[in-house]
């Protein structure tokens, strides 16, 4: 009886719904139902962009010059804002145990969860950035550079944040520690992101291509680091 087909997991491999697609849809659905994930980042972004002119003063030329840097700092902080819950919710309610007993590698699960998180938090920031750029007095001709740099750079920020989220998964208030752990790693992304967004001397192409390279490296490497941290944290 032990060879019963019912108990052979190989048999059920055909024609079953793809686990990673199911995970992506689940996370997007949760984000939409709970709400707040999208609006929180954008509103935080808006707050930073709104108060900066009050702090810097009404010098429009200065604002236009530092505008791309302000947008990038705001995007970085807004990205960090919700990241501590990326894996913590799943660890608390037992979903992480399901991930660990599935046939899908934990690395891919982390990658897909990061993608869902970026679609919910990073993409709205990118979409809102032209309006906020105008608020800072950027010339309309410069806006495509800002949008392109944020579009390519924010996924790297989310992926780096996933490492921090995995390391702080069992800490009750891990948000601040996550920021401290991740900010040094995010500095290269910030440097080349701001350069691609608005540096008049080095131009657009070189920093933009380096930014693309950083993001691709983050896609390739950070899931392994985050999964290793999660496995270690299970101990």
């Amino acid at each position: 009886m032990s060879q019963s087909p019912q108990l052979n997991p190989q048999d059920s491999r055909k024609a079953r719904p793809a686990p990673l697609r199911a995970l992506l849809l689940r996370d997007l659905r949760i984000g939409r139902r709970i709400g707040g994930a999208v609006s929180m980042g954008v509103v935080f972004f808006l707050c930073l962009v709104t108060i900066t002119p009050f702090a810097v003063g009404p010098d429009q030329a200065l604002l236009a010059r530092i505008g791309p840097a302000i947008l990038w700092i705001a995007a970085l902080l807004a990205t960090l804002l919700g990241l501590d819950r990326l894996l913590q919710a799943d660890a608390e309610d037992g979903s992480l145990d399901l991930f660990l007993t599935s046939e899908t590698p934990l690395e891919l699960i982390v990658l897909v969860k990061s993608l869902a998180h970026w679609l919910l938090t990073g993409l709205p920031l990118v979409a809102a950035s032209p309006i906020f750029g105008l608020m800072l007095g950027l010339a309309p001709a410069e806006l495509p550079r800002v949008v392109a740099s944020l579009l390519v750079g924010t996924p790297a920020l989310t992926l780096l944040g996933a490492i921090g989220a995995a390391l702080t998964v069992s800490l009750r208030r891990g948000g601040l520690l996550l920021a401290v752990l991740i900010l040094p790693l995010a500095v290269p992304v910030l440097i080349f992101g701001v350069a691609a967004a608005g540096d008049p001397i080095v131009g657009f192409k070189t920093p933009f291509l380096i930014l693309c390279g950083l993001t691709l490296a983050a896609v390739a490497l950070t899931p392994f680091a985050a999964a290793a941290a999660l496995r270690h944290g299970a101990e």
Partner: protein
Amino acid sequence: MQIEASGLSVERGGRVIFAGLGFRLGAGEALAVKGPNGSGKSTLLRALAGLLPLAAGQIALTPETEARRGELCHYIGHADALKPALSLIENLAFSAALLGGQDVERAIGRLGLAAVADLPAAYLSAGQKRRAALARLVAVQRPFWLLDEPLTALDAASQTVIGELMQAHLAVGGLIVAATHAPLPVTARELVLGRAA
């Protein structure tokens, strides 16, 4: 399929939870893990599922497979792994897709959850959440069941259903290890964990 564990020892935070634990379980057999609170029943189940590393000892499955041990296990722990924002059927469809099964409708019917299938999991009672977690046993076929207090919060009718499911699982050669204080509804050998101070 059979499992043989010998010399198992698990440490957490530098403290030995248990050491030198061994058992052998053949196809169609169940093991009831008993012992006072804090004696390491849940820890043993997590270690068997591969969720905790062993400090010493080994767990051997025969016949040998390429799959990790966790991929052959159903681990139903204290946490029900339900997302409050999703409906019961969405929760179950996700875990079935993730674990590689597709009998979601049958599982919901078998556990008597059809009436609440469209409710968000946040509105379910403790017993209903427990049944939703146990529905994974039906939705996804896996040979090795690790159940942590499976009967907690269940009403008499549901306990009967779980008993029938366990009986059917054993009849087709499955294995069950359950941590429990209440008597299991199937014939099971007992492993009693002591309290080491």
